[in-house]
């Protein structure tokens, strides 16, 4: 008997372990669809985006032989004529394949103004025969444009030919490498300013939604059920209306001869129409309206859970209403406030459609520039770098928030 017991136990343990493994596997199988979805819809795109912001093999693929020939070159004076001849042959091939435009775009990013040089050279070399290029390619190249006689051009080509680069991140913070490869300020300073403007606007919008949303949520939480439900419809109705419709409604309200201006002028408050549409002002107003539910809903659900007797106790012990609110109610509603503020702030930092429609040029945010580089200038690498930087900034802000407020202090209800 005594000998059999441990055997039995061991078999039991094996069975139990097998059972547990099976349950774990079953549980895992349940989340597999979600996992696959997250990997395909979230992890993979973000990883490719991060990778694209440092990896751009376009030039390396277009002119591999020229780049191989340039590898030996010191970079101080002009490269050998053999390199120039090789490049002239590459140019002719690209002009006929119609891929010279791609090369022009890429070199132009390394050295602004080069796009026109590459394109006009490609046009000039397109119909020249191969023997002429083999014997006289270097001269042909320099005749087509004298910038091919400048070592800086070749340094730019060599730099653009590296498949891995930090230049897109440098551009994102308004820096660039000069001819000596040292980091300097760019001539035009735009992106840092845009990031600060985006963060500032997001902060203003968050503050406005707090100012408008907190009293509303407070009132709703303490009103009768009937009244609260009635008000809730007004909070949710815009939430369910198409974003485009709500934004377009603001255009109708704010435009030069729109509702707001005609009312102001009819009342004699303004003599001529105020400029409200296509400014930062209109972006902030429209986004505050659109994001208000994200503030009201978590605040309301947290406030509903606060026991009213605490406030009554404080008041009955002689505290002033404002003091009681500050000492008792505010700390208890803070989780809802944190959740709402974080939601509104993070959503507005990456907001795109409303600034695009009502922001004009003044109200553009960083996401609009990312979209510009994705859709119009087709500079996907820069768009990826700008997007990754935005992601880093948001993570950083979340970390700061966690340090000072505490992520555990967030409650949606």
């Amino acid at each position, binding site marked *: 008997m005594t000998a059999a017991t441990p055997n039995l136990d061991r078999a039991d343990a094996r069975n139990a372990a097998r059972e547990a493994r099976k349950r774990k596997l079953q549980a895992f199988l349940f989340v597999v669809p979600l996992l696959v979805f997250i990997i395909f819809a979230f992890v993979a795109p973000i990883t490719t985006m991060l990778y694209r912001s440092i990896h751009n093999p376009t030039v390396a693929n277009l002119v591999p032989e020229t780049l191989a020939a340039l590898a030996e070159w010191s970079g101080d004076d002009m490269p050998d004529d053999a390199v120039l001849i090789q490049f002239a042959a590459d140019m002719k091939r690209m002009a006929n394949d119609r891929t010279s*435009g791609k090369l022009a775009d890429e070199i132009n990013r390394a050295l602004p*103004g080069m*796009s026109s040089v590459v*394109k006009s050279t*490609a*046009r000039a070399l397109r119909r020249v025969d191969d023997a002429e290029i083999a014997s006289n390619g270097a001269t042909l190249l320099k005749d087509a444009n004298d910038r091919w006689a400048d070592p800086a051009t070749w340094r730019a080509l060599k730099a653009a030919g590296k498949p891995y680069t930090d230049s897109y991140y440098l551009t994102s913070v308004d820096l660039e490498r000069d001819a000596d490869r040292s980091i300097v300020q760019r001539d035009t300073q735009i992106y840092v300013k845009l990031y600060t403007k985006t963060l500032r606007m997001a902060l203003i919008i968050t503050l406005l939604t707090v100012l408008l949303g907190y009293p509303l949520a407070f009132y709703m939480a303490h009103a009768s059920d009937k009244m609260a439900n009635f008000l809730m419809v007004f909070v949710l109705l815009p939430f369910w209306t198409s974003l485009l419709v709500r934004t377009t409604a603001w255009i109708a309200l704010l435009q030069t001869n729109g509702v707001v201006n005609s009312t102001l002028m009819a009342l004699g408050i303004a003599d001529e*129409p105020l400029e409200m549409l296509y400014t930062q002002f209109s972006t902030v107003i429209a986004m505050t309206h659109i994001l208000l539910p994200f503030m009201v809903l978590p605040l309301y659900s947290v406030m509903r859970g606060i026991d009213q007797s605490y406030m009554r106790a404080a008041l009955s012990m002689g505290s002033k209403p404002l003091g009681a609110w500050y000492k008792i109610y505010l700390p208890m509603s803070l989780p809802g406030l944190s959740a709402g503020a974080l939601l509104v702030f993070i959503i507005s930092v990456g907001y795109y459609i409303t600034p695009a429609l009502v922001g*004009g040029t003044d109200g553009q945010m960083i996401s609009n520039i990312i979209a510009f580089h994705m859709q119009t*200038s087709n500079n996907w690498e820069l768009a990826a770098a700008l997007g990754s930087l935005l992601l880093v900034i948001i993570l950083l802000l979340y970390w700061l928030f966690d340090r000072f407020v505490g992520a555990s202090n967030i409650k949606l209800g």
Partner: protein
Amino acid sequence: MKKHLTLLATVALLASPAVAQDLTVTSFGGAYGAAQKEHMIDPFVAETGVNILFEDYGGGVAEMKAQVEAGNIQWDVVDIEVIDLERACAEGYLEVLDQSVLPDGDDGTAAADDFIPDALANECGVGNIVWSVVFAVNTENGPGPESIADFFDTEAFPGKRGLRKRPQVNMEWALIADGVAPEDVYATLSTDEGQARAFAKLDTIKDDIVWYDSWSQAPVLLNDGGAQMVQSANGRIFAAIKDDGAPFSIVWDSHVYDLDVWAIMKGSPNLETAMEFVKSATRTVPLSGMQDVAYGPTRKSAQALLPESVKQDLPTAHLDEGLKADGIFWADYGESLGEKFNEWLLQ
């Protein structure tokens, strides 16, 4: 077996929208699009039974570039400004067309002689219209600006100026307003100093500019008071005056004239049908229909069909006041000036 048939039928039903859509033609919409639909699209559909999806775009090469680079060609035929054509053709977004298959003019002239020379100058396109970028004012506001210099004079002529959000034409106008002779404009713009000079001139009116993205927005802006004067394609203003009785007036000073051509997207899956459409749309009668929106036809035989009363409204009657848009310049500088322009906008 029956089950299989049902399945097949379902698959066929699901697939049918793609099959029914024989050709996607893309142009600029508005009054111009309406004229093209009446004189080019509808007759072709009636003759051949081909289904056409007629779409709008805002010009530029970005969308073509994206389609070709992604290998996902959604458009077949596209109406493109010559200012963008050189670039689109050189960068491989358009098919090279066989211009020898174009039909003779209705008066029997061979196509090569019937088309004006600029219309067939680029191997990727067949000329469609001669049109022009002008600016227009609303005459209800009293005496308005009469020259490009006035357009840039915010003291004498206060108010908003509507401009299309791109460097093309705006850079040219800035230099002309700054005193550069029209024939030197593109040479000046080729230099860094010239570009800086154009941006400096644009800076003087930057706060008074309303930017728009598509030609069809220009008459709207002028009409609803969003701008006191707008840059526009001449036909849009002409149509607003003629069809809606709008109190607009066109200023021809320093207008920048250009051609629009029909071109075919590189890698279009419907290449043959697309070419049939281009051949059909650029025959004498369809081209002469473009007079509805005051655009000059690119065939001499079509020009001959126009009544005298229409001719003075066409860009061709004002060529001596204008500047020919330089497609080669914009092929070379479109990309770099486009990025510089955007950075200038954001400053």
